């Protein structure tokens, strides 16, 4: 754990991650998503405990993205590295907390990594910090600092693999069957994706890949082949699914498993390429944490939470895929296909008047899509509607929802209990009978 290693993996990871995030922010901006996901919607779904996070006015929202991009860039350069990591963590996380409609596992991954980089000595090597004040430069770091990143990446893969150990995925090849079938027009592999055994092969291979890859990357003899598999796997997912930059983030993140000496050679080549050989830190000094106990406690707590939090769903009875209580923040990546439809009925008990809501007057199609399959969204939206219709003059509206959800190709069925007045349902502690039972069982984890 304490064995000194060349700090190249930390520096290489920092540079790659920072640049990737600069690219991600630019891409987000140029795709017009700042407007369409944050500024255009009149209502946003908030995370439990974070309803105080509100979308700032347009200049503020754009400013947030500028801050996020600049933080990522200065992190890549290693300029005031910890402050950059902190600023990236806060700005990026704040953006993610604005609306849970946009939740993606890889956004969570970005937040987590930015958080880790606040604590790790990523700026002491091949960085502006290290060249600016040379006495802060450190060539070596204790092994556990690099190990922390490797462990985090390993958790992502392993947990994604564990989540695939369920009967839908392994025995029905669902949802890959649904996802692959319509790809018949892809060049080269299109017709192949129509074959049932291919769906099973992809399901099983994907599971085996996720479960084994961290170990194969750790083991020197298999490392190069494992990394090749990482590249093939993620490029393939990029071709098949609309998953943005996630594959590239993971291809980059998995490089952290290469040995420190190898990564030092990459950085040496980079320093020659940039004609800045002095950037390659070579002072043979070892970094030591100023408060080792604090760091030890921090990292232990962090990883304990990382290991346990994804299993919180075990505390909640019922099928996780159905109620989704505990689905987020647990590396359930591309795991199920869920589609829904929710039709809200407003009843004015004073007049007996009843009518249905046109969701498109309140939500974007994307928000409506996410809302229709997730209980917490449905309840939050119902409370928003309650407030809206109270302002419209209905003193005590009752709100009911007729919602249907289809999961992994099963026929759609009633989802939320249509007889429950949602205005009476607490946002944090929903009653157990709020959801109608899922008429099937999915075995496994």
């Amino acid at each position, binding site marked *: 754990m304490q064995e000194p290693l060349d700090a190249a993996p930390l520096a290489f990871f920092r540079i790659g991650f920072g640049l990737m995030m600069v690219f991600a922010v630019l891409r987000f901006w140029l795709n017009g*998503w700042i407007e369409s996901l944050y500024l255009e919607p009149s209502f946003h779904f908030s995370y439990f405990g974070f309803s105080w996070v509100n979308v700032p006015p347009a200049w503020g929202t754009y400013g947030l993205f500028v801050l996020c991009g600049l933080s990522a860039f200065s992190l890549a350069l290693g300029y005031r590295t910890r402050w950059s990591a902190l600023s990236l963590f806060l700005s990026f996380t704040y953006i993610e907390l604005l609306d849970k409609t946009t939740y993606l596992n890889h956004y969570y991954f970005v937040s987590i990594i930015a958080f880790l980089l606040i604590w790790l000595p990523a700026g002491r090597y091949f960085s502006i910090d290290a060249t600016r004040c040379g006495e802060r430069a450190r060539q070596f770091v204790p092994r556990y600092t690099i190990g922390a990143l490797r462990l985090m990446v390993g958790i992502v893969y392993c947990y994604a693999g564990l989540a695939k150990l369920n009967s839908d995925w392994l025995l029905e090849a669902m949802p890959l069957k649904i996802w692959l079938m319509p790809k018949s027009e892809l060049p*080269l592999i299109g017709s192949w994706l129509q074959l049932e055994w291919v769906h099973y092969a992809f399901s099983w291979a994907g599971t085996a890949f996720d479960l084994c890859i961290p170990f194969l990357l750790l083991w020197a003899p298999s490392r190069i082949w494992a990394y090749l598999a990482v590249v093939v796997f993620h490029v393939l997912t990029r071709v098949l699914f609309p998953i943005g930059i996630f594959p590239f983030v993971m291809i980059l993140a998995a490089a952290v498993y290469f040995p420190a000496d190898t990564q030092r050679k990459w950085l040496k080549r980079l320093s020659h390429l940039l004609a800045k050989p002095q950037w390659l830190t070579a002072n043979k000094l070892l970094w030591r944490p100023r408060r080792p106990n604090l760091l030890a406690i921090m990292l232990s707590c962090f990883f304990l939470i990382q290991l346990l939090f994804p299993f919180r769903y075990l505390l909640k009875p019922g099928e996780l895929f159905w109620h989704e209580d505990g689905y987020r923040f647990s590396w359930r990546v591309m795991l199920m296909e869920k589609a829904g439809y929710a039709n809200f009925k407003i009843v004015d008990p004073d007049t007996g008047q009843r009518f249905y809501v046109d969701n498109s007057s309140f939500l974007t199609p994307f928000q409506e899509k996410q809302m229709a399959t997730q209980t917490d969204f449905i309840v939050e939206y119902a409370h928003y509607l309650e407030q809206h219709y109270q302002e419209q003059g209905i003193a005590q509206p009752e709100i009911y929802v007729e919602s249907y959800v289809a999961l992994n190709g099963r026929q759609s069925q009633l989802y939320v209990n249509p007889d429950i007045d949602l205005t009476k349902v607490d946002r944090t502690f929903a009653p157990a009978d709020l959801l109608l039972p899922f008429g099937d069982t999915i075995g496994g984890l």
Partner: protein
Amino acid sequence: MRFLFSLLILASLLSYSSCDDDGGGSSTDNFDRAAMLLSWADQVILPAYADFLEKSSELQTSAQALFDEPDATTLAALKSSFAEAYLGWQSISLFQIGPAEQVGLREQVNAYPTNTDGIEANMQSGSYNFELPSQRSRQGFPALDYLLYGSAADETAVLDRIVNEAALREYILATSERIHQLVSTVRETWVSSYRQEFVSLSDNTATSSVNRMTNDYVFYYEKFLRAGKVGIPAGIFSGTPLPGHVEALYNKALGKQLLLAALESAQGFFNGLDNSGVAHGNGFTDYLDFLNTVKDGADLSQLINTQFEAARQAINNLDDDLSDQVREDNLLMLTAYDELQRNVVLIKVDMLQAFNISVDFVDADGD
């Protein structure tokens, strides 16, 4: 370097596997999405436009005859071409894609309730530009409906107005010509350029033709057929019935027929039928059946067709005059709405999931 190397390996792996596959002759297992698009364009959509244009041309001719020689005979002839053309419109209304979407065809040809004050004001001033967005509810079939059936107290009074007011006859003519001209332009653009684009985009992305046409279909069924023709007049979204919001409000005899025609077109397209009812084996139903042979789930195409039938039954129970139906016995209208609603779930949730098509214009990453 390493990345480049890896990509090269990947590319060669992929091309190797596909060569292997071509030799295996497994392509017979494929549902041919490109063929589906060809069939939609050449066997369904373009013939439907051609059929409609015959009717709208007839409408134009009748309007000209009435303009030249206003009397009971020419008016009766125009009314009959109007009904024919309005019914014909129901089979192209759902193709709001490409050029039709660009010009906003549906919004100009069939926006109701029509703006009767605006129409009267237009006639009074004698100058109007139908291209302006403000004029969308002062033209199209609903405007003709008003002019031919509702512009005076009763049938004779309408005839009197038509005989005596050249401005009114001119408005009828201009409206008829506008419908024909709009649809002609859309069809010409289809033939000259859009067809090529439409049939070539056969992949499964947000902008591909299969996905867009499917989304447009769902949107039409949900917003225009279910809500526009039945739900809104029945007061589903307002709490109080709105009998003035039915289609063909003034004609009174046509409303239910238009609704039935629209339902038939929607079901017809679902089953890959052309305008004369011939199946070409390339409808949603065929694609669903194909996917189901692999997925082995519920027979969705049959469920949806059964539900179409149930909706038709419920609509058959309605009065010819839907406005009257809403006023007299809205319960039947609500029942028809419920039956239409059930298919929204099957089409929008189950069918879209089977096709792996996400709801329109959701342009964001997934994970």
